[in-house]
């Protein structure tokens, strides 16, 4: 073949290879096994971990947090208290899951004391670290240090070692592990103690740049590892480190360890399993990476209730759970199953920035009682991302999901720009759903609460709770009538030089507080104009400049009530979650007080309300009816999760007022009222609050207090604060004035320039 022809063929082959490489590099990657089903924003995982529950008898006495599961047996520590002798005895119990009862009980201590940690070996030997203390006749409490003991399965003491000299008397063991040779490893704060199988100290390792050792445990390779938060590097993060017993030091450090449980659980397919309240991860030492295995919610389990976790030899994951509310304990064996093999349910996705307990509790309960649909929660915040931009990245990811075709069915509205999204028609109007609901009554909701959740005529969410806040001052100083303008408040403050307007106030907080509810004084969105060159704004800046840059927390020994009574502080910021909150907030002044409110434009009552958690239905959702059924469930279910704030429904508020105003009486075991020496039933106390120099006891609400509370409810205005961006401009540009570098007129011009530009851009 001619050389030129050969050369031409080679050139073509080379060009073809390069073209192929270019083409392959343009091809997209797969999505890692997730399958998208019908509808918008729905994610269905390939595998689901299906739970099989085992209830535990007498579970109120089982402390699952420190329990160990070995084969068919559950070992846990238990303390029995004899009331007649006031003596307690500590045991390690062996509970048979097959027989459903305690089959063995080893006594490991008696007298005043508690078990720190224990470990059990496959032959039934038990190693216990326990602390004891003494209380003398005068009631003085003295710690006696840690005692380390070993027992055989029959309860015979193999050996005992006091660690008081080694660790001090006030120490506490927060972790214990055994390696393949039964050598002991004890973790106490930042220290590791290495002991032989006979309990003799062999060495000590002190970890630097570590607050405490989070967990210690043996891996499936028989070596012992510790996890801790590493402060030695800038990025920080939780790490895993191998313990070199022979070298008496830490060995290799493994990074990128996910945040989660404080127990090291060896896995089967992975080196370790890590549980968080949301999910379970598998971590591999070789690659120093983790993989998300499953979400607890997908298995209809509340991750907050999972105290402990283990893995069986056949690869099933065991969750040891304790329900805080019922105090019931149970065990779930989770088997990895193909989702396609399970009965199919309609998937509803809730998108949230950070998740939260209340949402998870509601979702788990809803899933358990629903037969045809299943809630999953997509949290856009990566809890294992410690970077400074993680929060902003989460907001960006959520916005991208909303504007792309991947919008979740339900959107949690906390911490996102609701008005911006509402103006784009992202949310479905809930008014028709509310009006047609058989479980909720629209009229049962406070009008101003619903108004606070309405944007351009669209009811985007219905809050379960809301908060009320206002300002209070002495009636002798602020008068009896509530409401004032900013000018009046500044004049009031200027009349009392030497007194702080609010406790804990500094420039930043005063600027935000003064600008709350005052947006209309300076900004007219309808006309698209702003006026930050007015005398009023100048007065405001000059007033704020009189406050300290930062509150002096070091010299803050006097309580707020004392400051209010002496006049060192003029106003009190009042938050109201129920009627009785008003009592203490007003009583702090030591004399009659008025709920004067935040300054407003027209001098009207400045009590503000802010809705609690809101959940909106996406306008693009294919499952709006089902999404509404979850919201309805959330709003009506008796939640065992404590919610802050006042209930949004009038009927619930009336119940609360009834509770706060109707005296309860002390009763005996038969339910009969206990009488005092005069033969009157004894009123049950409501407790109180206190500081070092002042305390207050609540009483049942009076008619006047109830009337005041109702007045606040009726007059509360939605908290429409100044646009965050504009507030940022004002705060940033005012700094040079506060620092004395620029004149007030100059900074006013700068603020005016930037705010006007921003308003022009967003009209």
């Amino acid at each position, binding site marked *: 073949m001619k050389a030129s022809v050969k050369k031409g063929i080679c050139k073509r082959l080379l060009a*073809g290879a390069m073209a192929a490489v270019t083409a392959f590099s343009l091809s997209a990657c797969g999505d890692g096994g997730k399958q998208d089903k019908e509808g918008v924003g729905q994610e269905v995982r390939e595998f689901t971990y299906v739970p099989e529950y085992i209830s535990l008898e007498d579970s109120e006495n089982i402390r699952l947090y420190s329990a160990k599961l070995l084969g068919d047996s559950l070992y846990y520590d238990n303390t029995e208290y004899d009331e007649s002798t006031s003596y307690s005895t500590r045991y390690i119990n062996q509970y048979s899951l097959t027989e459903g009862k305690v089959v063995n009980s080893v006594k490991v201590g008696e007298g005043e004391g508690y078990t720190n940690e224990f470990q059990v070996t496959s032959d039934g030997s038990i190693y216990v670290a326990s602390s004891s203390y003494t209380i003398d006749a005068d009631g003085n409490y003295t710690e006696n240090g840690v005692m380390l003991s070993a027992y055989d399965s029959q309860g015979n003491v193999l050996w005992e070692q006091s660690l008081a000299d080694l660790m001090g008397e006030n120490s506490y063991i927060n972790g214990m592990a055994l390696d393949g040779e039964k050598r002991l490893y004890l973790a106490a704060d930042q220290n590791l103690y290495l002991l032989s199988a006979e309990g003799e100290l062999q060495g000590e390792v002190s970890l630097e740049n570590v607050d405490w050792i989070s967990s210690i445990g043996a891996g499936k390779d028989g070596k012992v590892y510790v996890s801790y938060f590493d402060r030695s590097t800038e990025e920080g993060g939780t790490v895993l480190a191998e313990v070199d017993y022979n070298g008496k030091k830490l060995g290799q450090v493994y990074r990128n360890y996910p945040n989660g449980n404080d127990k090291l659980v060896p896995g089967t397919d992975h080196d370790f399993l890590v549980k968080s309240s949301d999910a379970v991860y598998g971590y591999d030492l070789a690659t120093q990476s983790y993989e998300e295995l499953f979400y607890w919610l997908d298995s209809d389990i509340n991750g907050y209730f999972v105290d402990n976790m283990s893995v069986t030899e056949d690869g099933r994951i065991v969750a040891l759970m304790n329900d805080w509310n019922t105090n019931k304990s149970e065990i779930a064996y989770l088997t990895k199953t193909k989702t396609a093999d399970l009965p199919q349910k309609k998937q509803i996705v809730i998108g949230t920035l950070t998740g939260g307990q209340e949402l998870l509790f509601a979702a788990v309960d809803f899933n358990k009682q629903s037969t045809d649909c299943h809630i999953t929660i997509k949290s856009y915040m990566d809890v294992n991302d410690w970077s400074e931009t993680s929060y902003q990245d989460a907001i960006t990811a959520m916005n991208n999901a909303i*504007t792309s075709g991947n919008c979740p069915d339900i959107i949690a509205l906390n911490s996102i720009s609701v008005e911006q999204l509402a103006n*784009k028609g992202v949310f479905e109007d809930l008014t028709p759903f509310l009006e047609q609901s058989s479980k909720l009554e629209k009229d049962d909701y406070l009008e101003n609460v619903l108004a606070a959740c309405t944007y351009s005529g669209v009811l985007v969410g219905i809050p379960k709770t809301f908060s009320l806040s206002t300002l209070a001052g002495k009636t002798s100083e602020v008068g009896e009538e509530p409401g004032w303008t900013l000018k009046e408040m500044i004049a009031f403050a200027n009349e009392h030089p030497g007194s702080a307007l609010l406790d804990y106030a500094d420039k930043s907080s005063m600027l935000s507080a003064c600008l709350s509810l005052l947006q209309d004084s300076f900004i007219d969105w309808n006309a698209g104009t702003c006026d930050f060159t007015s005398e009023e704004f100048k007065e405001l800046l000059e007033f704020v400049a009189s406050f300290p840059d930062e509150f002096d927390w070091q010299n803050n020994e006097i309580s707020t009530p004392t400051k209010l009574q002496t006049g060192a502080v003029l106003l009190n910021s009042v938050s109201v979650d129920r009627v009785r909150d008003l009592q203490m907030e007003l009583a702090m002044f030591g004399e009659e007080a008025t709920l004067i409110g935040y300054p407003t434009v027209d001098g009207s009552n400045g009590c503000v309300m802010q809705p609690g958690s809101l959940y909106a239905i996406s306008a693009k959702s294919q499952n709006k009816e089902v999404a509404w059924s979850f919201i309805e469930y959330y709003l009506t279910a008796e939640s065992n999760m404590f919610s802050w704030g006042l209930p949004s429904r009038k009927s619930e508020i009336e119940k609360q007022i009834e509770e706060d105003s109707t005296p309860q009486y002390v009763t005996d075991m038969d339910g009969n009222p206990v009488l005092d020496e005069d033969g009157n039933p004894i009123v049950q106390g409501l407790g109180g609050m206190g500081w070092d120099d002042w305390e207050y006891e609540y009483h049942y609400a009076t008619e006047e207090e109830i009337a005041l509370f109702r007045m606040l409810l009726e007059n509360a205005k939605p908290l429409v604060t100044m646009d965050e961006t504009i507030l940022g401009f004002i705060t940033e540009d005012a700094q040079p004035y506060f620092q004395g570098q620029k004149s007030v007129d100059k900074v006013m011009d700068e603020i005016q320039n930037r705010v006007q530009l921003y308003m022009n851009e967003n009209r």
Partner: protein
Amino acid sequence: MEKRLFKREKEKIRKRQGRKSKSVRKVQVSSGLYIAPSFLGVLTFFLLPFLVIIFYSMVDNPISMNFVFLDNFKSVTQNAAFRTAVRNTATFSFLAVPLAVVLSLLLAIVLEAKLPFRSQFRTFFLSPMMVPVASIVLIWQVLFHYNGAVNDILAVFGQGKIDWMKSQFSTVVIVILFLWKNLGYNMILFMAALASIPKDILEVAKLESATPLQTFFFIKLRYLSSTILFVTIMSLINSFKIFREIYLLTTDYPYDTIYMLQHYMNNKFKNLDYQTLSAAAILMSLVMIVLIGILFLVENHFGKDVEG
């Protein structure tokens, strides 16, 4: 016989042509296959997104996607912030680009002469290109901050402080920054173009008693026309990129005299306002097409009789 011969000849020619057109077709097909990946890339990352932008510019928002035709263009052109951005961008470009071209040409001519330390001067002007943007911004902040070095120098001369970045002077600061960053690169391009002017024509001009100015305007400038066009286009493109430095100096909302088109578009993107963003981008690209078209026409006119 002749007829048959002619016919046979014709067939032979046709066959040869057919073979030729077959081989030409083969080359065309294989060439097409080889450039297909690049073409796909351009289609995927440039053409299709542009079509998507056109679509977005004609809907009310990316969620409900109701067709509104030219309403977005109307609202953009009527928006005061957009008009401010256009005015500032045009002012900056018409100020900075000619300065960049003229000054870099002058520098190239000066450095073309046999001066001592010529290469050191060249290095000096090229070094801003190597400095990362964040470092440049840091330097500028140190210089032009309200409490920066320039105000300290002014104080020595009894002048009051100037708020460089929050006053009318901000445009001057940005123009200086742009020139400092881009002169070196333009200068190198001009130096290369000057070196490629045929020496014999310059000698002839010298022999014909042409003055240096005449030589420059009637000969050198003609030969530099394509380079001037290229430098002007590059400078124009770079003038839009000044947003990066302004953003690092002043964040999303600077003083209104340095609020550029990219600020407007960047902020719209952050607010999920894709429809007005798309409309503004299309308007800007139309203006760019017209401008560059004019530049090409000018270059064609002035450079048409230039050899090579």
